[in-house]
């Protein structure tokens, strides 16, 4: 298989199994590729079992079942059972849509460790608008059932300009539902969120206010609820240490079997991401061109290559560099040392202008029709 062998490769710890791109919801910030409708093929049960077995053998221990909506896969309980037998800690990342009490019990018996339910907002009206589907009451019901059956309950709310003003109510809702963990995920601008960025990116004032409220709440609930606050990197001056370093920790498998070093990597040109139907996880992780592409520091350009912070942030996110500068080797433009940092400022200004004008264009919802139109 093409690609160079590098020494000091650490084994994968996290496996993200994107079981399907099918989803009854239409979130306009969805991290799935904008052209997902072009990838209809899905791995079958035996393929997934083989992938789980091989990755576990290498040392992967945290496993996320996601999508799309993973509940649309009929073989989910069977895969969960297989994962449990192998000793994975498995996480179901779901919109809650279609989750019944019977299913919650069945998955528990199969060995599922936790369920992360996403809620779009603190009110029915806004939740259902953003999800593009009536789902609010059912999601709250699911959150109760998840707790009732002894799972740690993780609530995930993606934050953007349409719901950021609800931060106090979102926190109160999490408390009322008895969440053990609350993930406040500021939107990351890839996939559909990139397409809708002018409508989703909050202003700096909104960010700062919301962050203050979230921090104060974090102190208040310390010991009872853990808060994961995913920072909004557009307002930082250093990029995030993307994926903890390329090919060091995370392995994503897309619904069609393509193995990705990060879930947006199929948007990068020339990586030739390998498919689990053709290669073993061991070959993919250690030998493939894609997984070795941005390993280490040799690929870097200035200002990263001589920067004393490169071991901290690895030059930031490759997908963001590519999406915003057209050059996947460039420093992540979030970095204030990047010669392209102005593109971030322009994005912020453009979103602010949209926020202030009264005839904003509508959100583009994530569905197959829009996917075909955009790809």
């Amino acid at each position, binding site marked *: 298989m093409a690609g160079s062998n590098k020494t000091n490769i650490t084994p994968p710890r996290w496996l993200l199994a994107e079981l399907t791109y099918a989803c009854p919801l239409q979130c306009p910030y969805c991290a799935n590729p904008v052209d997902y409708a072009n990838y209809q093929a899905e791995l079958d049960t035996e393929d997934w079992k083989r992938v789980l077995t091989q990755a576990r053998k290498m040392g992967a221990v945290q496993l996320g079942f996601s999508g799309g909506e993973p509940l649309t896969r009929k073989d989910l309980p069977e895969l969960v059972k297989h994962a449990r037998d192998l000793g994975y800690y498995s996480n179901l990342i779901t919109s809650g849509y279609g989750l019944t009490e019977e299913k919650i019990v069945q998955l528990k018996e199969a060995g599922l460790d936790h369920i992360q339910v996403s809620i779009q907002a603190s009110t029915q009206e806004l939740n259902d608008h953003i999800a593009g589907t009536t789902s609010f009451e059912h999601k709250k019901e699911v959150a109760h059932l998840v707790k009732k059956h002894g799972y740690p309950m993780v609530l995930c709310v993606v934050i953007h300009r349409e719901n950021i003003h609800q931060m106090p109510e979102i926190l109160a809702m999490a408390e009322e539902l008895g969440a053990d963990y609350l993930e406040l995920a500021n939107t990351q601008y890839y996939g559909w969120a990139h397409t809708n960025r002018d409508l989703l990116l909050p202003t700096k004032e909104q960010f700062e206010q919301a962050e203050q409220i979230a921090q104060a709440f974090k102190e208040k609930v310390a010991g009872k609820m*853990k808060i994961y606050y995913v920072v909004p990197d557009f307002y930082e001056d250093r990029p995030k240490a993307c994926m903890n370093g390329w090919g060091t920790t995370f392995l994503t498998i897309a619904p069609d079997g393509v193995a990705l070093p990060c879930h947006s990597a199929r948007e990068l040109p020339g990586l030739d991401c390998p498919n689990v139907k053709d290669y073993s996880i061991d070959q993919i992780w250690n030998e493939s061109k894609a997984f070795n592409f941005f390993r280490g520091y040799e690929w870097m350009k200035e200002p990263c290559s001589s920067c004393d912070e490169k071991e901290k942030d690895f030059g930031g996110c490759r997908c963001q560099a590519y999406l915003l500068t057209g050059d996947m080797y460039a420093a992540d433009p979030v970095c204030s040392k990047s010669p392209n940092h102005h593109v971030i400022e322009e994005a912020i200004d453009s979103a602010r202008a949209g926020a202030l004008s009264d005839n904003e264009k509508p959100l583009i919802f994530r569905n197959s029709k829009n996917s075909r139109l955009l790809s």
Partner: protein
Amino acid sequence: MSINPDQAIKFSPLHRLQWEEAQQKDVILYPEGMVELNQSSAEILKMCDGARKLDQIIADLEQKFATTGLTNDITAFLEVALKNGWIQQN
């Protein structure tokens, strides 16, 4: 938060403690995270079975490792564990 000596200590049902062959270590697993344990921390947590109280845990570990004077180290670690939600009392 501190350990109540009169109550039994149990490992949290919302976490999982397990041996990882690939890492040759015991780890605690929880939603979206993992803590790697050194051997002594792992031995202490394995004693938290919901039946033993603090003094019993200390006595059993001192016996197991044929030593004395572990009270302070064990208590300090269990307080950290309680604060992190890895163990419970009630």
